[in-house]
């Protein structure tokens, strides 16, 4: 009896494999979205920059300030960064100078000057937790800068 059951299950799985193979490709889009929705996973903020917490509309272009990223596997790291993004590229002035308040005390914590023609960036620190900035990044439709912070 057990032998027959095992044999039946074996053949069933083997037959199912023939269905699974095309279904994997044909239902690929559906399954991908189902996995993403069911697990709720996102790209780690160290790569994506984290969620946007503030957008400033300058008329022609928009500045997006992401949340400060200190995410670690457990707890938080001592050093992190905050990502600032400007888009669309076509509407950006040649030089952008903008101040940012990331801790919500209504005072600018740092100021970034970005030359959108050359990518040159300067950082003015106004808060002791602001450390430095990485180089600027030319995106497909804009620019981004990451400013290093400590907690």
């Amino acid at each position, binding site marked *: 009896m057990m032998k027959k059951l095992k044999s039946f299950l074996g053949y069933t799985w083997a037959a199912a*494999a*023939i269905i*699974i193979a*095309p279904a994997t490709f044909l239902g*690929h889009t559906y399954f991908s979205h189902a996995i993403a929705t069911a697990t709720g*996973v996102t790209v780690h903020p160290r790569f994506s920059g984290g969620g946007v917490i503030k957008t400033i509309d300058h008329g022609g272009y928009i500045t997006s300030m992401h949340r400060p990223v200190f995410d670690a596997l457990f707890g938080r790291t001592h050093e992190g960064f905050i990502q600032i993004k400007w888009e669309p590229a076509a509407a950006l002035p040649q030089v952008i100078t903008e101040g940012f308040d990331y801790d919500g005390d209504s005072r600018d914590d740092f100021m970034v000057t970005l030359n959108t023609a050359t990518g040159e960036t300067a950082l003015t620190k106004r808060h002791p937790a602001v450390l430095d900035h990485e180089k600027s990044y030319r995106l497909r439709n804009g620019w981004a800068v990451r400013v290093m912070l400590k907690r």
Partner: protein
Amino acid sequence: MVKKDRAGIMPATQQPGIGKTLLLCLPMILITAIMLSQGQLPSDPSRVTAFLAAFIFINAIFFLMIRTGETDRWRAILFVTYAVCFVISFITHLIESRGSMAISQANMIEGLTPFCHIVIPMTLVPAALTKTIIFPGTIVGTKTAIASMFVLWIGSSLALGRGFCSWFCFFGGLDEGFSRLFKKARIKKIDLRWTYLPYAVLLLIVLVSAVSLAPFYCQWLCPFKTVTEYPEITSVKTALQAVIFISLFIALVMVLPALTKRRMQCGLFCPMGAFQSFTNKINVFEIRIDPGKCIQCKQCIATCPTFSMTEDTLAEGKTGMTCVKCGKCIDACRQNAISYHIKGTPLTGGKEEIYRRLFIYPAFIFLATMSGGYVQDAIAKTIKLFTTGNIF
């Protein structure tokens, strides 16, 4: 005892006739027609030519698999072609869309890095603990998005177990191609202790990636960066990474496979392969050796590309858990003592060919569908190169 006329050839009395072979190939012809065309024929003449060439080539391979009873001989041709076409298609696509094979930090911020299956083991611990994927890609939306690769991996693992490494992986064919360059192995004695190295690499990359929240293998150890994409060289660190990638590629994918006639990267280094070995424990397809037919010639041990056949496993009548189900040992066995088998079903009863067909249908669907797009693209680009002088 049924002996093959020569290694790998099914006795003429057992070979299906042309009509029966075509009938058995019909489902594959239909499936590949749908998969390769994705529901509609291309309008560009070079693309139509590429589609037809790929379609005929792939189905000819399947026809020969059914007709001759040989698996690995024909699989290897498509598998190696797939890997070569993947490299051609992928690199030209990168240059076309990004202007370079190098991936910049800006590309990473925008999530433009294609996700590959080797990253999967590294993402699991952080995904479980932080609900995030430690990779600069996108979750959904493209064919190379993270969730897409997870779907393909889950599907192929359920269907094939570690057969994934011989019927799905777009890198494995490079290793395999180089392992088939020479007729005889120049290096024959390999310490089997090294077969544990992939597990050590797996352990290492899973731990370091979890703690550093970055895909360590991609950053430091992946030989295939050499033929896909690598981080833009902007510092000593990135230059060192590039040196490591190229050195590992030359050593593990080119030189050692050529000298040993084994898939050295897959068998002695690849952490994804080690990870995938565990899926063999639950997958229903396996390779069995009939002790009644085996004459202990050990040809299977000598030919196994991933060191999955040893004297110990031979004595147990099966392969090790690292078996990639390529079928090379089956083709090599002159005694017909080795065959595909479905777990739970009887070992005797002359159903070996049924078991084989039940395995090669899903396996070939994966190989044909995965390779189809790249083979078509590589052919179309080659035609374009010859007719216009420009590959893009």
